[in-house]
């Protein structure tokens, strides 16, 4: 039993869980806020872009077998750049981790645990994720492979359950605020997939290296479908006024579900699944962060630092003073950080690496990357 590698199914589960959690949290609300009634159209368009992007990622990585994005950065721009790049990624992951857990815990606190201290709830979530990371990468994958199917089932069940509440007039006007908002500035909604940047670190962690293509494609397709389902639910089942609510849009959707007169509030089941899903999400992000720390620090067993990392995330998650400032971090800072860093700089690094390798390969066909 190798707990330092991920099997194909586990890798897919790990990648899916991060996007699924973003669906549960606020990014979907921001997408609807910016594109209005054309959200469904916009998200289909964004999903197609994401699939194209994942094909591109796979193409680049096929040139660099068993390498992650840091190796490609080193190959493209040298060791110093690799170091800065790694630190930037680390900051990005810790930032995503901290705002996500804070956002989720704020929601939980509003619904159920009004009297509990926010820090206490945060510690509980982060502790669970840190414990998972103590045992290694494979373990995080294994747990995710239990929780991801549950989360997918939860979202799919939500979609099925709210179909009766769909008001089809809400998709009109079909182009929402206009073509520009839907297809040009709306392309920025690609940031909903930014968490898939975890994929860039997966190749060395995969047990079967050849399965990277399968992992990339299946993950993108599953998450695209889930994103389309959830946006459709939100647009058709809820009034647009929900975008001003402090609550998670997914929770507002599941609150409207009714299964007969006896099961008036089945949201307990979904909330329960989403709690598991959030802890799994945190453990995945911590896993990748620990991987980066181990790589740049040349540590044999970075997992022993999981509790220290959890402390840093806890500190970072307490930076936002209140919910409006948290919303600002999520809708503005996170979005542009993702667009500029993940889709801008990282894509550039990958492209440079790809062409450099291609050129080098043409000159020295036998040469392989160290």
């Amino acid at each position, binding site marked *: *039993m*190798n*707990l330092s590698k991920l*099997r194909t*199914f586990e890798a897919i589960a790990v990648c899916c869980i991060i996007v699924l959690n973003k669906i549960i949290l606020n990014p979907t609300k921001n997408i609807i806020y910016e594109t209005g009634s054309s959200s469904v159209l916009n998200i289909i368009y964004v999903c197609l872009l994401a699939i194209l992007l994942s094909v591109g990622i796979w193409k680049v990585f096929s040139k660099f077998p068993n390498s992650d994005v840091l190796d490609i950065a080193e190959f493209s721009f040298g060791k110093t750049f690799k170091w800065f790049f790694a630190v930037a990624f680390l900051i990005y992951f810790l930032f995503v981790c901290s705002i996500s857990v804070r956002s989720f815990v704020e929601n*939980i606190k509003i619904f*159920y*645990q009004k009297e*509990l201290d926010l820090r206490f*709830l945060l510690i*509980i*979530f982060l*502790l*669970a994720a840190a*414990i*998972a990371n103590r*045992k*290694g990468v494979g*373990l995080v994958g*294994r*747990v995710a*492979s*239990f*929780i991801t199917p549950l989360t997918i089932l939860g979202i799919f069940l939500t979609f099925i359950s709210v179909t009766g509440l769909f008001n089809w007039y809400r998709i009109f006007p079909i182009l929402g605020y206009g073509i520009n908002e839907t297809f040009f500035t709306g392309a920025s909604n690609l940031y909903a997939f930014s968490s898939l940047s975890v994929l860039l670190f997966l190749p060395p962690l995969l047990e079967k290296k050849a399965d990277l293509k399968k992992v990339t494609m299946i993950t993108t397709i599953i998450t695209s479908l889930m994103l389309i389902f959830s946006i459709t639910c939100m647009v058709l089942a809820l009034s647009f006024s929900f975008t001003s609510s402090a609550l998670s849009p997914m929770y507002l959707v599941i609150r409207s579900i009714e299964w007969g*007169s*006896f*099961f*008036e*509030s089945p*949201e*307990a089941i979904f*909330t*329960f699944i989403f*709690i*598991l899903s959030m*802890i*799994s999400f945190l453990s995945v992000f911590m896993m990748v962060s620990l991987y980066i720390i181990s790589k740049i620090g040349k*540590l*044999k*067993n*970075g997992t*022993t*630092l999981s*509790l*220290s990392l959890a*402390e840093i995330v806890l500190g970072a998650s307490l930076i936002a003073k209140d919910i409006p400032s948290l919303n600002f971090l999520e809708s503005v800072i996170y979005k542009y950080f993702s667009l500029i860093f993940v889709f801008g700089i990282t894509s550039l690094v990958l492209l440079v690496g790809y062409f450099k390798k291609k050129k080098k390969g043409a000159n020295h066909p036998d040469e392989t990357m160290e």
Partner: protein
Amino acid sequence: MDIREFLRRTFLYQDIKEYDFTLEPSEKETVENGPSLTEEEREQKGEYTSDTKVLEYTEEKNIFPSIDVNLEYLKSRYNSMINSDIIIRNFTLTARNKQFKAFLFYIDGMVDTKLINDFVLNPLMLRNQSNTYHDSENQIISEAVTNNITVRKIKKFDMSDYIYNCLIPQNSVNREKEFSKIFDSINSGNCALFIDTLDVCFDIDVKGFKQRGIDTPKNEIVVRGSQEAFTESIRTNTSLLRRIINNENLMIENIAVGSVSKTKCAVCYMKNIANNDLVAEVRYRLNNIKVDYILSSGQLEQLIEDHAKSILPQLIATERPDRAADLILEGRVVIITNGVPYVLIAPGLFFDYLASPEDLNLKYQFSNFFKFLRFIGLLVSVLLPGLYMAIATIHVEFIPTELLLVIIGSRESVPFPIFFEILIMEISLELIREAGVRVPTPLGQTIGIVGALVLGQAAVDASIVSPILIIIVAFTGIASFTIPDFSLGLYSRLTRFFYIILGYFLGLVGIGVGIFINAVVICSMKSFGVSYLAPLLPNTGNQSHFGIFLIPAWKRESRDAFLATKKEKKEKHISMEWKFPKKA
């Protein structure tokens, strides 16, 4: 550990060097024990016929005239150097006043030693009228005199006939020329007599199983299976396994554990099936236990399991020889401890504890249904009180209005908080259970009934607990009885209290975090190098299960891949050849 050390270990980087054993695929069988090609490959090449498998076990070979060659062959087939119950008795046989080298070969525990002493060794070894009688070499059958010429019909003296007719005063003796038949006889409790210069072997019926000492199983009761259980005697237990498995590839190695008690333990496995690394690991762990004494298999279990701090069972404990034999034939290793009627089986995996010995006797649809029920039982037993606590205290809105009104109404007269109320009931239930186990059986049942009916009813009447809670606790108790394994039952009983506490303080968040941490712990565990959640995680492909469920008996072609056995297949692709005969 002081606080500084604890903090250093918790927050600072350290290079962890933990003992780690992982079961890797073993080498395929060598030529001696079978072919190196897989059965499928051989089948494709047309080499694999329906009889091949039988021949692999019992290679068609005739008995050699040289006793030394026979002895060496038997020793190697039965691995007598490590097989502790294989007995070879060398002696000098007296026949017609001459002495011949001979040996007896049998399995200890399966023969009646008195029969061997009195009716085999005694007449053969001690000088008596029969074996000292010396007549002419040839026997005259008929004689005729014609023209002063005497014509005699002579039967040449036959040593084998002589021994058969005169020296073995036994009612059932056969002369065999093939080793395969001798193996079958030895495995079933006969003894084999080999004599120098003879190319036949005497198969003497001296069976002597300890039949009367064997009891019926007390805790693993089945309707349609065997009603035999292990006993305290190690040799009786090995003979029970031998009788069921009936194959010379079954190895029984003796290892003494405990520097003072030197408790005999037997490691049993199939030489041609079990993974060598797994066997070596079991042997290694048993040989490296530095304690004064071992008195029970439970004690031994705690000393050889992978995760000593975990409350989950990691070795299967069974009192049923049929279950142990089934798992040996699947490629696992059985450890018998002298003086204990329970044997340990390695590796023990999570879903094994949800399997009942009855499962294999039933059609797979029923087995799977019951397995599913047991799984639900486990979940209910562990989570129900905690979930009730979480929902009744924090997430009240999840309860349907009508039900909520009923709960509130039933709790109106109860003065205690719900947490205290549930703790009282759960602890009472555990007390009743413990009392029921400790007192003699008839009284135990009475205590159970008195406890459940009288105490429960009285507690409700006295407004100490609400009726709804009695239902929750009773349902939890019933669900916990569906767990077939005692150790897993204990696990569920203890973890239930943690979930109650988590549910009370943190509601669904607490339960969710608890489940996540539980999942992390279970996923990280392994038993003797095999993932604890196998065959579900990792899904290794070939196995006789679909996830955790059994597949039809005719489809169980492969042994579980996670055991990395030497022989992958246990059934032919078409096992019901009577229904789908091979095309000519």
